[in-house]
């Protein structure tokens, strides 16, 4: 008995029951398609988060005041005044692992330009901020060291601000916008970055010299945070250690004291988000995997019924010379054919669905080759696994009993 003949026999048997074969396949099709689509959605969101984190600057370090206790009451970090401009200057002088460092103070308020207004906030930073946050100037120019020294009332604005304050499309460069009655002259427009993965509009920014914001807008001497970037992503940890030791020294903390500041890096953020999306992907894949198993049980069910229904046929095949192994192979080939065909259709539908989700719902979707391969392998194994028992049952039939079966 050769394989080609067995294959032909199995194919004829399936062709005789097209509808049933298709219905059985449906379980596998849905299972495989959902595994692929779910993994694609999971992988897609992971990839888009990773990409946005690297857009935000993968070696970014954020220092915020924090962990201060006054009489046992933990304070709101934004109200804390522990991070001073002197700290920033010290870090700038002493740190060796940083490629850039910028103080950050921000003042929110209604921005007004002519007859238009828009609620936003003005961030007080220095020139390094552009490289740290991977921003770029689209039109005009960035303010300079000189502007910081003189606390010049100039600003660089993002695309969203331009759209809202200058809806008529006029050139914003040289125009004046007011924040809390203080006029700022627009000297530059940032290149658009769109929304990030957390849904924050990265174009809704107004950058001004930190000295201007501190002295003229807020009249404060402390900072709401310091942004820095390590020389490379790998040096982030060394940079954090260095910053910690400098700040502890500057803040005159004792050995036993906790840090009165928080340092966060993008690495932490990215690993945290990765864990979340990985968990989500696993969950989705589990749900989809269950439907694949259900599909497999469908195969077993149908093959089992099919063996019972075709008992006479099996008896006849045995009487004309089919050995047990031939019958076993025939039914196994049938179930594998069902699952592989179902798997192939499922792969197509899964990829198609992923594409549809991408184009219609604009979700980040990414079909990974390994997920296609995996679900395809799983469904082949499903075919063998769930086809085995009915096939074995068929092969073990007694030809005399089988021929007499009504």
């Amino acid at each position, binding site marked *: 008995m*050769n394989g080609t*003949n067995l294959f*032909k026999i199995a194919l004829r048997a399936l062709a005789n029951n097209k509808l049933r074969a298709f219905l059985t396949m449906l379980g596998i099709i849905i299972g495989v398609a959902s595994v692929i689509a779910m993994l694609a959605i999971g992988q897609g969101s992971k990839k888009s988060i990773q990409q946005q984190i690297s857009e935000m600057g993968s070696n970014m370090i954020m220092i915020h005041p924090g962990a201060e206790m006054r009489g046992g009451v933990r304070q709101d970090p934004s109200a804390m005044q522990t991070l001073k401009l002197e700290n920033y200057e010290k870090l700038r002088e002493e740190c060796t692992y940083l490629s850039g460092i910028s103080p950050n103070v921000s003042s929110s308020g209604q921005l007004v330009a002519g007859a238009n207004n828009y609620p936003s906030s003005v961030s007080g930073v220095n020139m390094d901020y552009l490289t740290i946050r991977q921003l770029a100037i689209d039109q005009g120019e960035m303010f300079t060291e000189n502007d910081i020294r003189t606390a010049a009332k100039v600003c660089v604005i993002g695309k969203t601000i331009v759209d809202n304050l200058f809806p008529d499309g006029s050139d914003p460069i040289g125009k004046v916008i007011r924040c809390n009655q203080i006029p700022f002259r627009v000297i530059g427009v940032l290149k658009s970055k769109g929304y990030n993965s957390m849904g924050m509009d990265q174009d809704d920014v107004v950058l001004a010299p930190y000295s201007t914001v501190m002295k003229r807008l807020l009249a404060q001497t402390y900072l709401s945070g310091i942004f820095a970037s390590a020389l490379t992503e790998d040096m982030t940890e060394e940079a954090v250690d260095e910053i910690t030791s400098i700040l502890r020294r500057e803040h005159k903390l004792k050995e036993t004291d906790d840090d009165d500041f928080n340092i966060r890096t993008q690495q932490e953020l990215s690993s945290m988000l990765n864990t979340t999306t990985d968990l989500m992907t696993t969950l989705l894949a589990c749900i989809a995997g269950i439907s694949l198993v259900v599909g497999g049980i469908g195969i077993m069910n149908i093959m089992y019924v099919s063996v019972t229904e075709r008992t006479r046929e099996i008896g006849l095949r045995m009487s*004309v010379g089919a*050995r047990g*192994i031939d019958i076993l192979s025939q039914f196994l080939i049938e179930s594998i054919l069902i699952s592989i065909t179902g798997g192939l259709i499922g792969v197509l539908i899964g990829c198609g669905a992923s594409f549809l989700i991408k184009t219609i719902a604009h979700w980040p979707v990414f079909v990974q080759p390994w997920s296609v391969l995996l679900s395809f392998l799983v469904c082949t194994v499903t075919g063998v696994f769930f086809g085995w028992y009915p096939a074995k049952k068929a092969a073990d039939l007694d030809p005399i009993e089988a*021929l007499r079966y009504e």
Partner: protein
Amino acid sequence: MSCMKKIIELQNIKRNFQVGGETVHALRGISFTIHEGEFVTIMGTSGSGKSTLLNTLGCLDTPTSGEYLLDGVAVRTMSKSQRAVLRNRKIGFVFQNYNLLPKTTAIENVELPLMYNSSVSASERRKRAIESLMAVGLGERLEHKSNQMSGGQMQRVAIARALVNNPAVILADEATGNLDTRTSFEILVLFQKLHAEGRTLIFVTHNPEIAQYSSRNIRLRDGHVVEDTVNPRILSAADALAALPKNDED
């Protein structure tokens, strides 16, 4: 006769079944020899052991004791799959209820035994299936499906299937049992034609009339052979068919 080749040789065949706690003796020591070219009818009432004997002859069952030589090969000690291969090469079955594959063409049905013989190529298989169908007078209906055929046609397909592997013996189990009188005679004519061509046929039946058209008759009762006679005057099924009143439906 004795100079002819022995196709089937049974030596004191016994077959017991365990039913519940009791032992049922279906065959109680059967011995006979069938030579090449014989047309043997095996008769007996139900419970006489003729089904068990048929299963034994067809290598579907193995005897509890005794020896069975099919075309010189000892069957009793063979494994299940060895017997399957033996059936494939040496035996052609014709069943009462035809047992054709549903929704399958005549030619595919006839090809079936050769599908399990890897030494026969696809083209050879088709050629031999067509030859077999021609031999049973169905040369015009090669592509007809089994559900598009009458009972007589289906039984002809079944006979063609039994012929296709050129077996040592053809075993027919009540092959005319489901057919009307006229069609039964047509099938008997076909069997006599095969007999005339020198084929060895065994026809198991409870219908005593059929024995008149065979060359030898073995009668069973309670697991014993009670009669084994050579038919001195074989009737012609073709004559009997011609003598039948004409049927308007034909």
